[in-house]
């Protein structure tokens, strides 16, 4: 017994070492499961506050560029809206109907403006922290977009901050998107490397499209409404199994420079999720019988 105690006393640092390593490894693997801990992430109150201060300081420096981009985008959309309104009026001879429908469409979504306080683009699994959390109405699995296009999906939420899985996350980001006005859809996938290029997989072979056409969100995933801009098709490849196309997409969002984002909260998501769950349950019930 005495020898054992002596032994433990002499080598107690090895015990400490093993305990600390076990704690680290548990943290390391725990976080990979979906509901990781908020405590040791940048959504925790202290880390969030520190990043918020830092981002406030640097935000001023990039203000001019952000402003310029937004103005360009605004002009573009105003022109598009104008064009569409004219076309619609020509088709239906009714100008008030369009405005009413537009309002109806928007009232379905609640947009929560937020600021990015921490962001990375150089890792394989990039995450973004924003300064809005549960108390502002942000919940996991809500879509996040900025003026130029999609940004990601909310992953962890604390009271005042949230961590977003960026579209530049090779492990976990799969945003469902479609070719604008054509409807063929696939999943957006990023493989690391260049932060302005991603790939859309599983586009059917019979799909017709031109290079340079826009990819937008499909609206199937119940995270994003349909029509949020993703990027332009730059090249098309055959997939490795030859059964579908793989499209190289130049992303419209400049991930190195996102500051202002909106969290899109869709009131019908809960309803759709419940319906989907009910359908799954009934299928698995039938299979068991």
């Amino acid at each position: 017994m005495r020898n054992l105690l002596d032994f433990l006393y002499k080598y107690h640092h090895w015990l400490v070492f093993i305990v600390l390593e076990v704690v680290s490894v548990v943290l390391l693997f725990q976080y990979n499961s979906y509901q990781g801990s908020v405590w040791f992430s940048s959504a925790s109150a202290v880390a969030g506050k520190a990043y918020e201060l830092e981002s406030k300081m640097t935000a001023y420096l990039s203000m001019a560029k952000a402003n310029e981009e937004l103005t360009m985008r605004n002009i573009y959309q105003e022109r598009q809206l104008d064009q569409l309104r004219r076309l619609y009026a020509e088709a239906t001879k009714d100008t008030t109907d369009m405005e009413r429908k537009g309002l109806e469409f928007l009232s379905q979504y609640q947009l929560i403006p937020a600021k990015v306080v921490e962001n990375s683009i150089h890792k394989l699994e990039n995450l973004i922290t924003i300064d809005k959390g549960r108390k502002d109405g942000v919940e996991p699995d809500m879509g996040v977009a900025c003026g130029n296009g999609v940004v990601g999906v909310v992953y962890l939420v604390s009271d005042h901050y949230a961590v977003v899985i960026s579209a530049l996350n090779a492990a976990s980001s799969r945003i469902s998107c479609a070719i604008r006005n054509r409807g063929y859809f696939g999943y957006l996938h990023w493989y690391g490397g260049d932060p302005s290029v991603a790939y859309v997989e599983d586009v059917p072979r019979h799909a017709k499209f031109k290079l340079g056409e826009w990819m937008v969100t499909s609206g199937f995933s119940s995270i994003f409404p349909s029509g949020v801009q993703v990027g332009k098709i730059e090249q098309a490849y055959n997939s490795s199994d030859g059964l579908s196309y793989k499209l190289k997409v130049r992303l419209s969002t400049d991930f190195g420079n996102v500051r202002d984002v909106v969290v899109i909260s869709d009131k019908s998501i809960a309803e759709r999720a419940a319906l989907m769950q009910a359908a799954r349950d009934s299928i698995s019930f039938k299979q068991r019988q």
Partner: protein
Amino acid sequence: MKIELVNRLVMFLSLLVVQVLILNHVHFLGVGTPLLYVYFAITFRRNFPKWLVLVSCFLLGLMVDTFSNTPGLASSVMTLAGLAQCYLMELIAPRDSAEDLEASMKTLGFSKFLTLSAIITTLYCMLFFALEAFNFFDVLMWLARSLVSSMLTLVLILAIESVRSR
């Protein structure tokens, strides 16, 4: 002892702040990020209580993890770096040197300090990036990232040491 602990605490906090607010945003050639906080593990004096080395290294790693959303990654490798330092210091320090020999360029001399910090930094960076890329292991990318990052870290450490040893 008390002054030493306060010194350690100041170093802990300043390395944390520098790493989180500045160095984490550096991506030299798109691959290299200096991981300067490993300097904390390198500079423990000889015969500093080993459990305290391990626990404080672990905590610094955990804090860095908290800020970069990688729980367990830096903390596990930092703990290992702390342990490695305790034994490397025994090997590298001259036999007739003081029991509480400081690990600095001034006391060890340039070449010995360089050996100590190069071994720990390279070990640290290699393990860090291997664990980070756990799911998508790409040998060339891993080598590039760990080598460039350890070079950058080493240059920073030597720069700081040469200022301190004046």
